């Protein structure tokens, strides 16, 4: 999965309230047994929750950060966000799909849009007067 992100030119940054020293321990003692070569991206430390507050994921009752995921484009603009409570883990495949869709839109300089359920290779929409009322001709939902 990380390889796919690299191929898309995506840099991953993870953040938690653990110190960078604890990140090292976690990587060296557990993650290295799950991921070949250890964690390939920067693991950031936000012990006071300052970054978490700015991103709206700080849970002050527990002193932790919620599972927040932000897609930031090359101009530094947030294009997508998802915040989950801790018990449910993420599904990275959907994040990759969204990244691919945002890259298609950006490559078209905003001329193209991806409809609901869009997967790479599917037709895209070109919003404009001609498309109004005619989406059904170009986009056929599978389900």
């Amino acid at each position, binding site marked *: 999965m990380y390889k796919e*992100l690299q191929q898309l*030119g*995506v*840099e*991953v*940054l*993870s*953040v*938690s*309230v*653990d*110190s*960078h*020293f604890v*990140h*090292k*321990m*976690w*990587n060296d003692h557990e993650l290295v047994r799950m991921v070949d070569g*250890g*964690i390939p991206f*920067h*693991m*950031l*430390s*936000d*012990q*006071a929750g*300052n*970054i*978490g*507050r*700015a*991103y*709206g*994921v700080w849970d*002050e009752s*527990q002193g*932790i*950060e*919620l*599972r*927040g*995921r*932000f*897609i*930031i*484009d*090359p*101009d*530094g*603009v*947030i*294009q997508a*966000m998802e915040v989950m409570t*801790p018990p449910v*883990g993420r599904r990275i495949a959907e*994040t990759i799909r969204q*990244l691919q869709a*945002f890259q298609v839109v950006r490559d078209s300089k905003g001329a193209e849009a991806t409809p609901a359920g869009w997967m790479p290779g599917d037709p895209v929409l070109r919003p404009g007067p001609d498309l109004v009322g005619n989406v059904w001709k170009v986009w056929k939902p599978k389900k």
Partner: protein
Amino acid sequence: MPDEPKGCARVTGAILGAPPPQTAERNSFSHSPMEEPMTARVGRPAPDFNAPAYFRGTFKNVQLSDHVGKWILLCFYPGDFTFV
């Protein structure tokens, strides 16, 4: 520029442009919540920050704005030794 965190001097992330954290108050329970310097919203610039990080055996500081020009996936999670 990512620079080496100096020993234990800097142990947390900071939002750029926010007032410097007052270390004496930081862990105090009576500390009133700081004013939100910026709030993340889609379509708006991502709040910039600088934080110490662990990366492939080394410690370094990471600043978000140093990575402008690349797509970034920023992921928060509740804590180490849990599933990400």
